[in-house]
């Protein structure tokens, strides 16, 4: 008996060749820069003579004592909360509604898909225009309704809401289509049997449809959190971090440190810290749910399907039992 069979090697190790290009490319273009950045964060960067002087953890200590950085951390978390309140559920709601449409579904879907196409910068520019306190559309509408005009982006209390608001009314896009595809897979029989059991429309949505799409919702939540932590483009264009630092996110602050104050070493440190925050949050989320991202696409729905199968089986047996005496009788 051969211990090292050629076949086994072919099966277990040769396929690594398929993975090699991807691994090289990721290692080189994603991991190497971040490790380089991590390395540089221990230096006080000298522009002409890289990398500069070694200063150990000084940059990190400075970061945690820096009131502006702590402010940006607070802002980022506030953005996260606001985005959950205003933005996260909108595509789910829209998908649920569009799923109900009988005729013209494709048309609806196309219309609600259009926002996916927008480059972030175009939307930010447009909305900055709308929120303009002197001649923008928002105040124009308020004035016509005889309501007091607001300062919108200039108001530290309102600015974060104004930045996230477009996601509320323009909630269509790729996420919505993904939810729609998921909803379409909810088997009709479940709704039929639930209707026979007397469940109304809203009950059915909440008890059957939504739980079935939970896996994809949790996946999207992970991605949404990552997105908030990486928020840069729209904030930069709309407010540049103002007013008075009320909309400065961690990434934006790092960018300012690098390019306005030319503190490249410190900026990299802040980026590394941001990355660590995201990483921790993502790990927490992934471990809470039996997350499909890691397992290969067949996560939490399994439980539901098993339960439903059991219910169906019970019902079938009950029906059979009910029929039997009738037949006999």
């Amino acid at each position: 008996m051969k211990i090292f069979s050629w076949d086994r090697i072919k099966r277990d190790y040769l396929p690594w060749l398929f993975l090699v290009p991807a691994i090289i490319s990721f290692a080189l273009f994603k991991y190497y820069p971040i490790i380089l950045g991590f390395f540089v964060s221990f230096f006080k960067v000298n522009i002409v003579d890289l990398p500069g002087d070694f200063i150990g953890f000084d940059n990190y200590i400075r970061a945690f004592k820096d009131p502006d950085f702590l402010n940006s951390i607070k802002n980022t978390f506030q953005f996260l909360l606001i985005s959950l309140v205003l933005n996260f559920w909108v595509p789910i709601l829209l998908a649920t509604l569009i799923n109900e449409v009988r005729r013209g579904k494709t048309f609806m879907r196309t219309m609600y898909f259009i926002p996916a196409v927008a480059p972030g910068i175009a939307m930010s520019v447009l909305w900055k225009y709308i929120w303009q306190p002197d001649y923008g559309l928002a105040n124009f509408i308020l004035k016509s309704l005889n309501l007091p005009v607001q300062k919108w982006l200039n108001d530290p209390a309102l600015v974060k809401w104004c930045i996230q608001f477009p996601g509320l009314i323009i909630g269509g896009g790729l996420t919505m289509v993904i939810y729609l595809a998921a909803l379409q897979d909810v088997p009709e029989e479940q709704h039929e049997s639930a209707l026979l059991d007397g469940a109304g429309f809203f009950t059915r949505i909440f008890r059957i449809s939504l739980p079935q799409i939970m896996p994809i919702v949790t996946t999207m939540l992970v991605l949404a959190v990552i997105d908030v932590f990486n928020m840069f483009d729209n904030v930069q264009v709309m407010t540049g971090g103002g007013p008075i630092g009320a909309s400065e996110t961690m990434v934006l602050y790092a960018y300012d440190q690098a390019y306005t104050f030319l503190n490249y070493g410190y900026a990299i440190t802040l980026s590394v810290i941001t990355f660590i925050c995201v990483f921790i949050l993502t790990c927490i989320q992934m471990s809470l749910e039996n997350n499909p991202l890691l397992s290969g696409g067949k996560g939490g729905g399994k439980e539901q399907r098993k339960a439903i199968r059991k219910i169906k089986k019970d019902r079938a047996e009950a029906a059979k039992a009910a029929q039997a005496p009738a037949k006999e009788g």
Partner: protein
Amino acid sequence: MVPQDDASESSLKSFDFTKAKVEEKFSDVADIEWTRMAPGTDYRQQYDKLLMSGDGPTLWNSLPFVDIQTRMRNGTIAEITDYVVNWDLRNEGKVNPSIEEALHDDEGRWYAVPFAPYIMGLLYNRTAIEAGGKDPADTPNTWEEFGEWCAELTDKEVPRFGYTLLGSDYLAWPYTPWVWSAGGEMVINNGDGTYSIGFNSEEGIDTAMYMHDLVWKYGCTQTDLLESYDDYMSNMTIGYACYGWGLPTSLNIDKLAAYGATQDEFGVLPFPGKTEDDVIGFAGGETWTMHPNATKEQMDVCWDILNLLSYDEDYLRELWQLENELGLIDPKPSCRQDLVEVKYSYATNWPEHWKDEFAALNAVARPEPFCAEWNSLKDYIVAPMQQVLATENITREEVKELLDECAEKLYTDFPDAFKKAE
């Protein structure tokens, strides 16, 4: 040096002329490569990036003089003492001395020479002012009267704002000359290479309160403090704003035509002072710098080139002739002290009132402070100023607190540049 992608026909012609001349004179030297930096305010970042990658322009003329003190300390520009000390022109007094102090350190080592001094003043839009029922010639020159004047001009329905505040990151600019006219200083030289902060003095607070009043008491400014520079220029051009900050030549002819305006409608005045005698203007300048790793040979050639382009009388005369024909000539005083009037005499295409206005402004213009880390100071002061301008009922004590806090931050973050006076 090369004009941007989107420069107008006329700028291109002017550049071609320059390029031809240089190549003519220096045809025996090896390659002269003409490169272009990114547009907008990114040029400093571009320069740093290029340096970090081992590249960068050997000769550059975009660094404003306020950057020199910082850069001489962090090694991103070359020392050129030998050239300057042996410079005949300078020894004959023919070089513009207004920004000299910024270009050398206390031990007499030079790092840059002037390229294009510039001035800024109170830009006005005649059409807008007349629409508001007034005549720009009567613009008052004290704070109080100016505030009231603008208040009368303002009509938010149109909209027309009396005075438009430079928003976003540029708040330090209007603040600075007004602090001067109040009798204060932004920074004070300690004499040992460091500066102490001056804007948290009584005069600085006065200025902050005045700017606050422009927003709240006189109600003559736009509401958007985050206004981008684009919008600001748009407002001035269209006539939504009557007065602002800047220079009429920054409104180029083509753009004005797009809005249906002409250069004649604009002009510039000195900033109103706290009292009548304190009207003031704001000066600065761009400089010639060289790459820190340039070889002696390269630096020799660079020195000759910059002498040709900024200090050679024959070349300058020809250039001004051409620029006047193209409508490009600007009021930046020439670096040649003795040729300032000459330059003005070439400017036959300017609107009538400009010559007098520029002369008046030049007479009271003061150069921007140039201490090391001045740019950082300008950035740090944005947050407290935004706070002051945004809060309706702010007291002097609160303003003082904010300014003091800002000063403290500057002392802590830049101990080599800012130190409290003993």
